[in-house]
C-alpha cells in the first residue's frame, strides 16, 4: 500500500482536496482548525491511502492538533507528501514547504485556491517553482474541483517512480558547518541516513519542541551537546531568515503578470458590516435568532408536526391492525406499538428540526463566518479568561457536545483548553431539542422560539460563569493570547452543506436505532412489569416505584411527576431518550396527545424549571467518554457528572422558588 500524507497550513483546503481525491466526504469548514484528528481514506480502486492531517504553520507544534501532524511525520511511514499551499499566501505557506522538502520524501506541492490568486491578477511560473524547490508543483482549485483530477493522475502514475526530492537550502556558513558536524556524528554512531540526520539537525537547531523531545528520548548526543551553542548563536533566527529570503527571491523570479485583477472584494464588503465594531455583536445575535426561527417557527417545526401526525396516526393504527390480524401476543403488540413506535418514532419525528439546525451550523462553517464570530466574541470571552477561539467549540456544541469538545484541541493554552472542555456540555445540544419542543408546545405555544432561545442563553451564561470560576481556581489569567485568521468568504456550496448536514445528522438516526431503541425497550419493560409481575396499571410498575422514591428529592424544583423523573434518568443514555420515555410512560400515541396530557401535570413555571434541569444536568454517556479521552483522566469525567448535577439542581431551585416568590406559577 502507498501512503500519501496531506500537510499544509490551516484552512488551505486539505480536507476539501482529501474529499475530492478519495471520493468521500470528511468534515469541512472555513476556519483554521477544522480537522483535529488524522483521517485516512482510499483512492477508489487503488491501493493508495490518503491521510488528512490537521493544519500546521510549521513543523514545530504549538497545539494538540498540530502535534498530531508533526508526530505523524516523525513516527509513521509515508511514501508521498502532498503539501497543500494557499496560492495567494505563498510567502508564508512555503516556509512549511521547505521544512517538508528537507525531510526528503517524494513531495508534490499543490498550489490550492489558485482561483483567488488569479483574481488578484497574479500568476507564478510553474517551471521556476519546480526548479527552485526540486519537486512537482500542481495548480489546484479543490473547491471548484479544478486540477484535482490531474493531481490524482500524477500521484497514481508516477508512483513508485516519483523521485525523492534533493532540495537543499544553503544556510549561513556557521549553520552549514554545524549541520555537517552533526550529520557526521549522527550517521557514524546512530545508524541514520544522512538525509534524515540533516533534517533532524536543522529542526533541532530551529528549537522544534517535538524534535527536541525526540532527540532527548533517543539520547542523540551530537545534537544535545551542541544545544547551548546553537542557542547562543541564534541559529533559529538565521534559519528562518534564510528560508524567508529564499522564498522571496524565488517568488519574485517566478512572478508573472496574469490577467487583469478583477477583485470584486466581496470579503471586504461583507466584513465592513459583519465585523463592524458596534454592529458586529447584534448581527451575531441576529444570526442566531434567525437560526432558531428557522428551526422552530418557519421550517423545522411545521415539518415535524406533519411527520408526527403520520407516525402517531396512520402508522401506529395500521401496524396495530396488522399485529392483531397476525394474532400477535398482546405483550409483543404493546412492545411494538406502545414501546417502539411511540418511543423511537417519537424521537425520529424531530428529524426535520434537528436537520434544519445542522444545516444552519454547516452554512456558518462553510461560509467563513465562524472566525468572525470568534473575533466578535473575544472581548467577552477574555473577561472569563478564555479567548474568542473557544467560542467555536461552543457553537459546534449546539449541534453535538462531542465534536464541540474535540474542536477545543485548537486552543493554544492547556488550561484554556481544559476550561473549554469542562464548560462545553452546558451548550444545549440538538439532542435536548425534542424535549424542549414538546414542552414549549404544551406551555409556551405563543413564544416557542423565544423560550428555547432563553434556554440556550442560560446554558451560555452558566458556562461563562463557570469559566470565570475556573479561571480563578486554575490561575489561567494573563496567559491568554488570541490570534485568528480571517479567511476569505466562500459562497456556500449546496453539496458541501448537504454533506455537512448529513454527517452531523446521521449520528442522530444511528442513535435512534441503538441507544434510544435500547432505552425505550428498557423503560417499556420496567413499566410493563412490576414487583407482582405484569401490571395493568402503570402506577404499580417498576418505573413508577423508582420515580416515586425520588419525588421528594425533586419537589423543591417543582417536579411532582414520577414519569418526568424516570425520563430524566434514561436521559443519561442519550438526551433524546427523555422524550421517548415520556411518550411510553404516558401511553400516548404521539406528540399532540402528549402535549395535551402534559398540560395537566405541570405548571408553566415547573415546566420551565424542568427544562432548565434537563439543560444543565449530567451530560450523556458519549460526552462523558469524550471528556475522559480529551483530558486523559476519569477524574475530570467524574467531576463533570457531579458538578453538573449540583449546578442543575441549584439553578432550577433558584428559578422555581424565585418564580414562586414573584407570584408566578
Amino acid at each position, binding site marked *: 500500500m502507498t501512503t500519501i500524507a496531506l500537510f499544509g497550513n490551516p484552512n488551505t483546503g486539505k480536507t476539501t482536496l482529501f474529499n475530492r481525491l478519495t471520493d468521500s466526504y470528511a468534515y469541512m469548514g472555513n476556519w483554521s482548525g477544522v480537522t483535529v484528528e488524522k483521517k485516512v481514506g482510499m483512492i477508489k480502486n487503488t491501493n493508495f491511502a490518503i491521510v488528512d492531517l490537521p493544519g500546521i*504553520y*510549521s513543523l*514545530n507544534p*504549538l497545539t494538540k492538533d498540530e502535534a498530531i501532524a508533526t508526530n505523524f511525520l516523525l513516527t509513521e511511514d509515508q511514501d508521498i507528501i502532498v503539501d497543500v499551499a494557499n496560492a*495567494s*499566501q505563498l*510567502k*508564508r505557506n512555503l*516556509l512549511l514547504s521547505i521544512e517538508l522538502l528537507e525531510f526528503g520524501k517524494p513531495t508534490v506541492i499543490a498550489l490550492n485556491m489558485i482561483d483567488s490568486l488569479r483574481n*488578484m491578477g497574479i500568476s507564478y511560473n510553474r517551471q521556476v517553482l519546480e526548479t527552485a524547490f526540486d519537486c512537482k508543483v500542481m495548480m489546484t482549485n479543490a473547491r471548484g474541483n479544478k486540477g484535482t483530477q490531474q493531481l490524482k493522475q500524477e500521484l497514481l502514475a508516477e508512483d513508485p517512480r516519483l523521485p525523492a526530492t534533493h532540495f537543499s537550502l544553503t544556510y549561513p556558513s556557521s549553520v552549514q558547518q554545524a549541520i555537517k558536524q552533526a550529520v557526521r556524528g549522527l550517521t557514524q554512531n546512530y545508524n541514520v541516513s544522512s538525509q534524515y540526520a540533516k533534517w533532524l539537525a536543522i529542526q533541532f537547531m530551529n528549537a522544534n519542541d517535538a524534535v527536541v523531545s525526540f532527540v532527548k528520548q533517543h539520547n542523540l548526543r551530537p545534537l544535545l551537546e551542541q544545544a547551548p551553542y546553537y542557542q547562543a548563536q541564534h541559529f533559529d533566527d538565521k534559519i*528562518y531568515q534564510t528560508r*524567508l529570503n529564499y522564498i522571496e527571491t524565488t517568488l519574485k523570479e517566478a512572478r508573472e503578470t496574469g490577467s487583469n485583477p478583477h477583485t470584486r472584494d466581496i470579503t471586504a464588503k461583507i*466584513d465592513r458590516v459583519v*465585523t463592524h*465594531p*458596534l454592529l*458586529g455583536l447584534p448581527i451575531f445575535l441576529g444570526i442566531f435568532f434567525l437560526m432558531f426561527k428557522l428551526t422552530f417557527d418557519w421550517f423545522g417545526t411545521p415539518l415535524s408536526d406533519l411527520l408526527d401526525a403520520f407516525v402517531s396516526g396512520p402508522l401506529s393504527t395500521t401496524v396495530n391492525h396488522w399485529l392483531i390480524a397476525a394474532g400477535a401476543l398482546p405483550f409483543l403488540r404493546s412492545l411494538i406499538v406502545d414501546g417502539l413506535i411511540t418511543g423511537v418514532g417519537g424521537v425520529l419525528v424531530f428529524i426535520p428540526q434537528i436537520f434544519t439546525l445542522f444545516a444552519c451550523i454547516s452554512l456558518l462553517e462553510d461560509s467563513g463566518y465562524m*472566525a468572525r464570530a*470568534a*473575533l466578535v466574541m*473575544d*472581548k467577552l470571552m*477574555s473577561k472569563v479568561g478564555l479567548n*474568542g477561539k473557544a467560542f467555536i467549540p461552543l457553537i459546534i456544541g449546539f449541534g453535538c457536545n462531542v465534536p464541540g469538545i474535540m474542536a477545543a484541541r485548537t486552543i*493554544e493554552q492547556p488550561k484554556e483548553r481544559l476550561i473549554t472542555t469542562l464548560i462545553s456540555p452546558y451548550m444545549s445540544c440538538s439532542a435536548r431539542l425534542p424535549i424542549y419542543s414538546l414542552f414549549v408546545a404544551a406551555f409556551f405555544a405563543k413564544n416557542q422560539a423565544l423560550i428555547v432561545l432563553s434556554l440556550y442563553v442560560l446554558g451560555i451564561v452558566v458556562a461563562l460563569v463557570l469559566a470565570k470560576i475556573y479561571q480563578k481556581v486554575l490561575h489561567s489569567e494573563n496567559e491568554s*493570547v*488570541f*490570534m*485568528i*485568521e*480571517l479567511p476569505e468568504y466562500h459562497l456556500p456550496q449546496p453539496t458541501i452543506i448537504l454533506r455537512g448536514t448529513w454527517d452531523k445528522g446521521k449520528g442522530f438516526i444511528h442513535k435512534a436505532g441503538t441507544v434510544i431503541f435500547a432505552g425505550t425497550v428498557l423503560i417499556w419493560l420496567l413499566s410493563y412489569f412490576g414487583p407482582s409481575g405484569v401490571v395493568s396499571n402503570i402506577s404499580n410498575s417498576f418505573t413508577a416505584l423508582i420515580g416515586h422514591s425520588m419525588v421528594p428529592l425533586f419537589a423543591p424544583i417543582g417536579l411532582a411527576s414520577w414519569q418526568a423523573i424516570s425520563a430524566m434518568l434514561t436521559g443519561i443514555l442519550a438526551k433524546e431518550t427523555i422524550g421517548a420515555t415520556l411518550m411510553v410512560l404516558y401511553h400516548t400515541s404521539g406528540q399532540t396527545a402528549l402535549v395535551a396530557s402534559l398540560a395537566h401535570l405541570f405548571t408553566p413555571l415547573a415546566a420551565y424549571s424542568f427544562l432548565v434541569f434537563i439543560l444543565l444536568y449530567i451530560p450523556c454517556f458519549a460526552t462523558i467518554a469524550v471528556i475522559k479521552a480529551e483530558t486523559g483522566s476519569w477524574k475530570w469525567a467524574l467531576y463533570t457528572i457531579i458538578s453538573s448535577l449540583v449546578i442543575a439542581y441549584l439553578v432550577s431551585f433558584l428559578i422555581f422558588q424565585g418564580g414562586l416568590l414573584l407570584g408566578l406559577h
Partner: protein
Amino acid sequence: MWLPQLHQQSETFHVNNLQTLDVKTQHRLKDLGLTRGKKVTIIRRYPLHGPVIISFDHQKIGLRWDLIQSLKREQVEQ
C-alpha cells in the same frame, strides 16, 4: 468616544521588535509571517480596547489590542 470609531481610517505601522513577547506568541506571529520590519495595516478596531484586525501579505488576522500596543511601543522606544 464611540462615534468617531464608526468611520475608521486605516492606519499603518512597522513591526520593529518581537522580543518582548512570550515565546509562544513570537512563534505564532513568525508562523504567520509577522516579522521585524513588516509593514502592517490596521483595518478595524473594536471599541473599549477590543480586538484589532490587521492586514499584511494578502491576509487578515485578528489580534488583541494590547498585543498591537506592544508591537508599536517598541518602535517608539528605539
